[in-house]
């Protein structure tokens, strides 16, 4: 095999710091042309805001391979959990490489053969990783054209590529395929700078709709999720869980559990588990363990948490301000003070956190349902004192994540248990474990003081968010006098959040958009202005205006002062680089308080939309999932215990809730692609709240908008 190394600049020879030495994966993967990209430089070039680039390693961490049979493989640390990048990433590569989609394979989430990745979250796969892969693909095309130029004796400028075949434009008989060019070679190219990417007018694949490439195996049961893996000698584990998060075990008696046929109890410190080849027997055994615990009663509950937050000793962090809010106050004809409450939410993916661990010949291999295979690997390395090359995490299909599988406690537990048990251990959390050990969407309070002048122009915006995060807290409106303050946990003060909290689809933004857009609606109503007109009057952002206009057209919006009795609501916002506007029509049963959503329309500007079909599915999914937090979802807790720990009491959206859904994606092929998996969920709480107001005159300040809360709000009119 002929070995060539084309080296650009500043080469770090390997990604060994992050795992397997490259020489090893070449052994596994064989020959061909390899393109490595250092995303740091690409990110600079595509001008991503610094906060998005944070956490991206400075190592070479994306690569593709053109194999000797001409197939192109993308190796990515990203994972597929339903969001559809298994389809859209190859589309992005196809256009840069000028090959058909069928020639592209994708290998995801295997820490031994995929380059390091921070995790699949934040709608970063397309707008950041996708851009990196496009860069790598464009570079690969360049390498191939150079090789073809030498072999055909024709200058590069005279060559073009059609579906993996390089053709001399002056003599169409002179051709050579990518497969022929890659044969017998091992070329590594390290790329630091961005070569020119294909002009959008030349896209053949990007911007076209493709059905999901994984659906055929998902409808037959063939697709493998972590729980579907099986190894010789594998046992199922169940872990003994304390009655509440804060409880400490004082005594344990597992003699009765050991009497269940085939059961073994394993223990390391507070980690106590039963293992059995039969999962039902493990379930039977775990409840036979008698344990006692000590714990301090937790006084705060799901009703008192908001007051607790407001009274807690916190850090008040000034996010930013414009103008002078005292001066703004003086310009106001009317001012409005509101307090919004948002509860804890569970992720409730249908697949519970699952991991299979095998410890063999000193190497730990863990198959896990995780959004962060490399994060899990690093944690296993730390917890089990293993070096990087002795831990491999493999990510099969993930059965829904929504941010919840960015955490991977189950993977660490399975690894520990496999080492203790001396055999492969399958750990599939029960639904109750899923609800209790979830990292919830954080509860929060938002207080807003705002005001308008006589002309209906917003002059004042004093925005205070308590403990629920700032993503989406931007005003988006053009307000001369603003102040934004974030109240956060003070170190040394008693913890405000009683449980683990984390990212929940469009983290923080659902809360912030709810509060902001309801407050805007309050002012529009007080000004006696149509709520769409009020927004148009107070914001200049062209992206949002375009979305508002597009959704109004799709919805067939007719202007009217709210409350009009029609039950029509409006809300808009920005998330993950994209912009959205929603309109909804609801019916409210004033005797029961029950809200029925008749229809929701959404317009989204997400820059270049790589796969409109996939993006539409995500928008529909966001809208449908959003109905849950708008109408019903709430984690209830008392005395430190989670009370909503099964799917009959924690209500996620069902078929009967489904409104008519209409979506519009604005044509922005000339713009870089943005996030699409989260934006359309951010305004669902607000659009429904504003529609309830339009129907009834009842103002909703509290999520979820259950029938009881709607009745309460109706009484206050």
């Amino acid at each position, binding site marked *: 095999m002929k070995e060539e190394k084309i080296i650009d600049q500043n080469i770090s020879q390997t990604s060994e710091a992050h795992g397997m030495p490259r020489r090893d994966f070449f052994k596994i993967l064989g020959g061909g042309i390899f393109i490595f990209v250092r995303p740091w430089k690409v990110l600079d070039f595509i001008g991503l805001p610094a906060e998005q680039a944070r956490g991206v390693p400075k190592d070479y961490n994306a690569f593709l391979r053109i194999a000797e049979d001409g197939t192109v493989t993308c190796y990515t640390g990203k994972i597929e*959990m*339903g*969001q*559809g990048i298994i389809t859209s990433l190859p589309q992005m590569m196809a256009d840069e490489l000028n090959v058909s989609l069928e020639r592209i394979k994708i290998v995801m989430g295997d820490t031994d053969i995929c380059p390091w990745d921070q995790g699949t979250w934040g709608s970063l796969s397309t707008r950041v990783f996708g851009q990196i892969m496009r860069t790598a693909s464009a570079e690969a095309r360049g390498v191939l054209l150079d090789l073809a130029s030498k072999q055909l004796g024709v200058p590069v400028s005279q060559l073009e590529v059609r579906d993996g075949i390089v053709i001399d434009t002056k003599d169409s008989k002179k051709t050579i395929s990518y497969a022929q060019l890659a044969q017998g070679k091992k070329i590594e190219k390290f790329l630091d700078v961005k070569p020119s990417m294909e002009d959008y007018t030349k896209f053949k694949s990007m911007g076209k709709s493709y*059905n*999901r490439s*994984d*659906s*055929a195996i*998902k*409808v*037959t*049961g*063939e*697709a*493998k*999720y972590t*729980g*579907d893996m*099986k190894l010789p000698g594998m046992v199922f584990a169940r872990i003994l869980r304390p009655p509440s998060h804060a409880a400490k075990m004082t005594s344990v008696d597992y003699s009765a559990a050991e009497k269940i*046929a085939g059961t073994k109890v394993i223990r390391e410190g507070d980690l106590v588990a039963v293992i059995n080849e*039969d*999962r*039902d027997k493990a*379930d039977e055994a775990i409840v036979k363990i008698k344990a006692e615990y000590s714990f301090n009663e937790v006084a705060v509950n799901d009703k008192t948490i908001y007051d607790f937050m407001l009274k807690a000793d916190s850090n008040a962090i000034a996010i930013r301000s414009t103008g002078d809010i005292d001066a703004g106050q003086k310009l106001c004809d009317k001012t409005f003070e509101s307090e919004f409450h948002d509860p804890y939410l569970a*992720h*409730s*993916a*249908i*697949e*519970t956190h699952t991991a299979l661990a095998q410890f063999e010949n000193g190497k730990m291999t863990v198959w896990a349902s995780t959004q962060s295979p490399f994060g899990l690997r690093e944690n296993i390395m730390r917890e089990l004192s293993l070096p990087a090359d002795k831990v491999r995490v493999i990510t099969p*299909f*993930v*059965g*829904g*994540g*929504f941010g919840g599988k960015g955490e991977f406690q189950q993977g660490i537990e399975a690894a520990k248990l496999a080492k203790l048990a001396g055999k492969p251990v399958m750990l*599939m959390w*029960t*639904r109750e474990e899923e609800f209790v050990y979830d990292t919830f969407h954080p509860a929060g309070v938002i207080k807003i003081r705002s005001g308008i002048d006589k002309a209906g122009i917003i002059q004042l915006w004093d925005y205070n968010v308590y403990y629920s995060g700032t993503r989406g807290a931007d005003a988006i409106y053009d307000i001369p006098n603003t102040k934004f303050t974030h109240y956060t946990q003070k170190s040394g003060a008693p913890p405000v959040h009683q449980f683990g909290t984390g990212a929940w689809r469009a983290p923080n933004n659902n809360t912030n958009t709810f509060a902001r857009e309801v407050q805007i609606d309050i002012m529009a109503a007080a000004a006696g202005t149509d709520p769409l007109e009020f927004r148009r009057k107070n914001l200049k952002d062209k992206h949002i205006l375009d979305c508002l206009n597009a959704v109004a057209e799709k919805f067939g919006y007719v202007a009217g002062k709210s409350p009009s009795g029609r039950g029509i609501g409006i809300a808009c916002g920005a998330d993950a680089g994209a912009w959205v506007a929603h309109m909804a029509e609801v019916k409210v049963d004033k005797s029961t308080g029950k809200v029925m959503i008749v229809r929701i329309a959404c317009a989204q500007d997400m820059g270049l939309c790589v796969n409109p*079909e996939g993006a539409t*599915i995500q928008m*529909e*999914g*966001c*809208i*449908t*999932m959003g109905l849950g937090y708008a109408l019903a979802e709430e984690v209830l807790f008392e005395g430190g215990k989670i009370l909503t720990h*099964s*799917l*009959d009491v924690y209500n*996620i*959206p*069902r*078929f*009967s809730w*489904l409104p008519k*859904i209409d979506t519009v994606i604005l044509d922005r092929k000339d713009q870089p692609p943005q996030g699409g998996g989260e934006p359309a969920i951010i305004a669902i709480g607000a659009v429904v709240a504003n529609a309830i107001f339009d129907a009834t005159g009842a103002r909703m300040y509290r999520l979820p908008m259950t029938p009881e809360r709607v009745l309460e709000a109706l009484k206050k009119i």
Partner: protein
Amino acid sequence: MEETIKFQLNGKQTETQIDPAQTLLWALRNHFELTGTKFGCGMGFCGACTVLIDNEPVRSCQLAVAEVAGKSVVTVEGLATNGKLHPVQKAFVEHDALQCGFCTPGMIMNATGFLMKNPSPSVQQIKEGMENNLCRCGAHMRIIEAVQTASKELKGGK
């Protein structure tokens, strides 16, 4: 404690030595290695483990394998015939009626059983028939469309 249990599994007569108290879900997944049937909650609330027993959609986590003795069990692996997708599976693919795909086998089995009883359902009836199968990704709209399409194809005898 194992017993011989005979039943029809995906069209084939099956005789197996198994603990009769084992749930059908885990018997299918672990003993028969048919992992298309998913564990979602183990309490009968989500429907991810739905299979057909004598053409009735049943939650396999809620009954012991002994209870299917003499009956016919069909799992998602048994729907396609001669490599040809069942019309319900085909419609799910055509409509992209899935995202993560974890609830999909249960959705497909429930829809298949539902359409056997009600070959010409209205949208309202489809919603009622599918109501207790949970999907977190929000594929509901497309699942309804897929069930409508499958209903037409099944009636057309294609």
